């Protein structure tokens, strides 16, 4: 294993990490502000990916596809919030889990109805195709660098938005004291719809960005959703910086684990069993990391103490 290979895998991990951040940020915001666990967040990711693939195919413009993913995911989020989610804020977590599980069924089967069972494919946009040479002679795909850049910029933007703007101040107030902000005369219903749509747009964007890297198909959202849960458990519920750090930990340890563990075990095992043990172990690595974090800090790295 060479250093350039490791560096390349680290960049892949970073790209995976920022994508997870876009998912986890929405989830953690929605939980922090509304106290809601939303299993259907993966469906919004899927909506974004399908919207991007379909619109890009129809218009020939990847950029229009990305714009469509934002619009469709945010609209789907707002509609779902208005029709279903807002009835759940005062319910217990079990009802929230069940209703959003039902939403997954509706979204997944609805999408299959519209687009069929065959996956869609989307190529990398022209201006962003090809590879660039990084310092140290590493050849790396420009598009993945672009995703890293977009993800980092959005992470910074989101943190500034929440720390500096008026809406951000309301979100922070909502996280600490729900009664207070309604007492302050903030239209809480509108704030909730806005936060939900914002989270949905971020998830939809994540779906659109990976649509050029992998196939777009029904059921693509849920594995990512569960990884985003792992991110939140590690980072701490309700914390955007926590989601960022957690996403990088998960993205890097998963990617590096998959590429390096089999090679590591090959140092002292026969190749076939090294591959078996290495790949099984690397598939469990992030969960082991999560368990370790929990032992040390039960509420996550950035979570409030009990």
């Amino acid at each position, binding site marked *: 294993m060479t250093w350039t290979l490791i560096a390349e895998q680290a960049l892949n991990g970073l790209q995976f990490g920022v994508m997870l951040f876009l998912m986890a940020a929405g989830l953690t915001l929605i939980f922090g502000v509304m106290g809601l666990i939303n299993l259907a967040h993966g469906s919004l990711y899927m909506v974004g990916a399908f919207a991007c693939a379909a619109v890009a195919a129809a218009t020939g413009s990847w950029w229009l596809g990305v714009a469509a993913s934002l619009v469709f995911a945010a609209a789907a989020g707002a509609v779902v919030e208005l029709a279903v989610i807002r009835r759940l804020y005062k319910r217990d977590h079990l009802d929230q*889990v*069940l209703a959003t*599980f*039902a939403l997954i069924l509706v979204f997944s089967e609805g999408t299959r109805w519209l687009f069929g069972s065959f996956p869609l494919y989307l190529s990398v946009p022209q201006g962003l195709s090809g590879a660039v040479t990084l310092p140290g002679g590493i050849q790396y795909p420009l598009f993945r660098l672009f995703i890293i850049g977009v993800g980092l910029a959005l992470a910074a933007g989101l943190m500034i938005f929440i720390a500096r703007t008026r809406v951000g101040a309301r979100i922070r107030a909502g996280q600490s004291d729900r009664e207070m902000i309604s007492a302050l005369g903030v239209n809480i219903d509108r704030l909730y719809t806005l936060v939900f749509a914002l989270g949905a747009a971020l998830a939809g964007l994540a779906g659109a960005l990976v649509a050029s890297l992998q196939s777009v198909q029904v059921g693509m959202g849920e594995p990512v959703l569960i990884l985003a*849960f792992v991110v939140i458990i590690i980072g701490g519920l309700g914390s955007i910086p926590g989601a960022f750090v957690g996403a990088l930990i998960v993205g890097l340890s998963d990617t590096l684990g998959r590429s390096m563990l089999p090679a590591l075990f090959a140092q002292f095992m026969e190749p076939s069993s090294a591959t078996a043990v290495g790949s099984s172990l690397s598939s469990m690595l992030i969960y082991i990391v999560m368990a370790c974090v929990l032992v040390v800090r039960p*509420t996550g790295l950035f979570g409030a103490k009990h």
Partner: protein
Amino acid sequence: MGFKMSRERIVDLAVLLMLPAAVLWASATGETFTITLATRIAILAIAATGLNLALGNGGLVSFGHAAFFGAGGYVCGILASHAFTSEPLMTVPFLIEGTKSMPVIWLVAIVVSALLAALIGLFALRTAGVYFIMLTLAFAQMIYYFAISFPGYGGEDGLPTYVRNGFPGLNTLVPLPFFIVCFVVLALVIWLVDRFTHSRFGLALAAARQNGERLEAVGIAPFRIRYVAFILSGAITGLAGALYTDLNRFVSPSMLSWQTSGELIVFIILGGTARLFGPLLGAALFVVLENTLGGWTEHWQFFVGLILLGVVLFARGGAIAFLSGKASHHG
């Protein structure tokens, strides 16, 4: 009060007897498929009754019970496949061979899933609420990915067992005896859970669900009560997993998937949380719904989702509450 109690009892009894009644009718008319369907309902009801001990009685919303269901399923698949090929599982430090005997397989399935629940519970029960939901989901997903990436037992493709395992004195290859086996196990499990929930342990578990602080103040540590409930719950769901593999003669990672965990919760909600016969009624409703809608449209899941949404948003308390005229809600 007395009248409603008895009405609830009557509904319970009717729910329990509906499976044998359907099977009786099916054997008379030669509808083998209905027997298989009833067997499936019985097995899923065992799994959901197990989950309900943790979820309904203990208030532990586990979104990861597929891990135990799948663990039981793989125990059955692995033991049976080793018996089929006559290759021992391991030879050092001691010899473990495969088996085709259901009782032995059940015992191993119970022990293995209980151990897995003990391990997962050790981490997950340190937390509560949303954390607990996400953690159980995450750990189940870990087992799922392990089953996919571990090349030994079929990986992503799953593991066939070819021939159904045997029960002393019965021909389990015929649908009817296998249904009877599953139904008797279901009845035993329901009886057992009823015992648990009305015992001292059940009293403490219900208290842990409602007010952990109060339980601590009378000198009982909620963690230990919840931990034991979680392990018992996982063991029962694991037993159901072993039967499910025997029903399908096949085990695959899909038994371990998050959808399986979600469906187990759906059974409980459809039937009614913290009601002894709720999971059975819920499983029956779900399987019948799946088959009826599945006959009309291949997109039946879309409508199942809508119906489920309707139930959660507007019909809290589940079907047992509805049937017994008791507008109660869980919590």
